[in-house]
């Protein structure tokens, strides 16, 4: 059975605590699974005593992948609805549009899934996921250790602070390790995947690492298979492709040849917290809500928020106290994470989740092929330094 709150089974009746979230549902891709899961968890929480008797009023808004709308919605949640905390945010455009606004409004965001660089370089924005760059470098690490790759090509979208950011990491690491590496930036809107793949294959690399939305990854793989490259080159990808539907969609041609990074634990893992997540989804979510890595992220964000709020005097929950509580989060443990999650008080940026696993496409499913390994991202130096100084793991 799902476990949340005080597990008293008594619905919370007090004055609601307003928590907001902005998600990118309508548009090139659907990121709303994160907030769906968070919603499920908060419902579960409210059914079990809530925050010391006060239910959480969880307001989710869809920014439709439009920064302007994202900004409007942030104004709505923070200024009009007076949210004390933002939890489970997962949007491609929101970080860039709102990071400064959140800072101005002195509100903290425990985000679910962050993608562009802004999400990991903002003072008030702390995602539970690792982010495309850390994730891609996780994959790169695997390529180095397990696949013994000698040459690598990185394919990313030509979107500022996404593609270049990630691929720069790959290049940098490749330099350090003495590999030959090459970056290909593509317009995610292009209809011509084949040429991109041919371009990547031209330099005869051992591995190609993709850092693209799954909607673009699948056609690229299709084109690669058409060209017979699935046999000759290993394809790796950031966690964005770690979606239950992908192995089935790309088909048997990729069994053992498409390996993705996982920001969280195996979706079917039998570990207690992962099971609790699934139980919460079954009891409080919709049947139709996908049980995917986004959902894990949202669930974790909700639990972190719960942990933080529980430390407060219910009579005195406001933006300051809530923020202080979240800042205080340290060593938050869950078997869905590889390593404990922390906020990182005083840090100008937050990237607590930087230890990841890998899985391979096999017979229409994902099969985990590696244990947790810290991502060899050179850019994480400051994070690692802080972790050491703060005595975290």
């Amino acid at each position, binding site marked *: 059975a799902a476990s949340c709150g005080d597990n008293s089974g008594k619905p919370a009746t007090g004055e609601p605590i307003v928590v907001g979230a902005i998600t990118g549902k309508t548009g090139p891709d659907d990121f709303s699974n994160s907030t769906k899961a968070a919603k499920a968890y908060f419902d579960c929480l409210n059914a079990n005593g809530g925050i010391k008797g006060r239910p959480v009023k969880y307001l989710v808004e*869809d920014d439709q992948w439009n920064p302007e709308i994202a900004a409007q919605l942030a104004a709505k949640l923070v200024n009009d609805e007076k949210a004390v905390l933002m939890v489970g945010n997962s949007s491609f455009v929101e970080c860039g549009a709102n990071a400064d606004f959140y800072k101005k409004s002195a509100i903290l965001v425990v985000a679910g899934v962050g993608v562009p660089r802004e999400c990991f370089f903002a003072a008030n924005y702390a995602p539970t996921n690792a982010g495309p760059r850390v994730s891609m470098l996780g994959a790169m690490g695997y390529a180095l250790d397990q696949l013994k790759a000698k040459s690598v090509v990185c394919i990313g979208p030509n979107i500022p602070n996404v593609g270049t950011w990630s691929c720069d990491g790959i290049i940098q690491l490749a330099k350090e390790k003495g590999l030959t590496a090459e970056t290909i930036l593509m317009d995610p809107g292009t209809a011509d995947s084949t040429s991109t793949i041919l371009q990547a294959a031209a330099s005869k690399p051992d591995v190609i690492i993709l850092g693209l939305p799954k909607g673009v990854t699948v056609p690229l793989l299709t084109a690669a298979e058409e060209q017979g490259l699935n046999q000759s080159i290993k394809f790796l990808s950031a966690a964005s492709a770690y979606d239950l539907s992908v192995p089935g969609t790309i088909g048997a041609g990729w069994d053992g040849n498409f390996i993705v990074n996982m920001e969280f634990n195996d979706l079917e893992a039998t570990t207690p917290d992962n099971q609790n997540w699934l139980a919460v989804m079954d009891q409080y979510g919709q049947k139709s809500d996908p049980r995917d890595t986004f959902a894990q992220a949202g669930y974790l964000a909700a639990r972190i928020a719960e942990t933080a709020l529980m430390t407060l005097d219910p009579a005195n929950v406001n933006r300051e106290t809530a923020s202080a509580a979240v800042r205080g989060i340290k060593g938050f443990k869950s078997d869905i994470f590889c390593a404990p999650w922390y906020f990182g008080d005083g840090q100008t*940026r937050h990237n607590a989740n930087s230890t990841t696993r890998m899985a391979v496409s096999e017979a229409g499913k994902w099969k985990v092929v590696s244990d947790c390994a810290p991502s060899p991202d050179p850019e994480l130096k400051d994070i690692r330094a802080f972790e050491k100084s703060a005595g975290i793991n």
Partner: protein
Amino acid sequence: MSVQPQTIASNAEGLSTMRLPKQLLHVPVTTALFAAVVVLLANSFWLSAATSAVALSLSVAGLAILYGQLGLVSLCQFALVGVGGWATLRIGHAFHPPFEVSLLAGGIVASAVGLAFGVPALRLRGLYLALVTLMLAGGFQIIISAWGFPDGGPGFLGRADGSGREMLARPVIADGEVAYFLYVCAAAAIGLLIAQWHKLARPGRAWALIRKGETVAVASGVNVLIYKAWAFALSGLLAGLAGGLLAGNVGQLDGRAFGAFESLNLFALAIVGGVFNWYGALIAGLLLRAVPALLTDLGIDGYITIGIFGVALFHALATAPTGIAGQIAGLIARLNSGLSRGRAR
């Protein structure tokens, strides 16, 4: 394109110079009323939506000149909004001048680009011209989604990499939400005034001749190329100002928001709003930003919203050839005549 009485009415008074100022007076008065209502009623969310709406109505006014006056269709207007926004941000972050300076710079750059966009089109007409401009919008989409908008970083593109993104400072006199909204309304009023004056005066007459037929215009001594170019430049200017004001609203812009489809949408809603009355632009602006905001606020699914938009768009096109503004004007006209008849009795 059947042009309806009320347009004409406005044009008609173009000649009798004494009525000209009175005609123009409607613009600031109406905008002021609208602004007052919004300020009194709106919360943060609505204020932000209304600000975008008013800003965008400027770009629609530009479209209205091209389409309503010259019968020329530009499907790259939203791209020009982007250009204006880009230039505003670029100048703003590079030299930190007063907001007005960056804004004006944005307007001028967009107007220059609009002219450049217009030049190949000067000899084209109708759907063909429309599609050529759509190509421009398509090209811009690719470029801007790759470049993004300046946010205080170094170099020509001015991209800060993630950390240290800067927001464009709002005008000193209008830093707060409400103040900035009023600021935008004032700017819009001025822009709409300029557009309206053009319609009522000499350029309006020349444009009407060009719409009738270029040989006719030439035979009446109109320099067709100059007047067309002028229209493109003016329309570009208005679009640019709109872009600058948008940039000021959020403090930054995002490349993904300026796709070619947006330009199509802008034109469609311009028609729905009505290109033959100056306030059609205001209505179109609201349709572009306030209506979606309303649907979002009601928590309606994004896709459903898109669908509703589709249905509404067609309904408006089919039932109101002169757009909502045209119908309002018709209503007003009928009321007036009714009143005067009442007085007569």
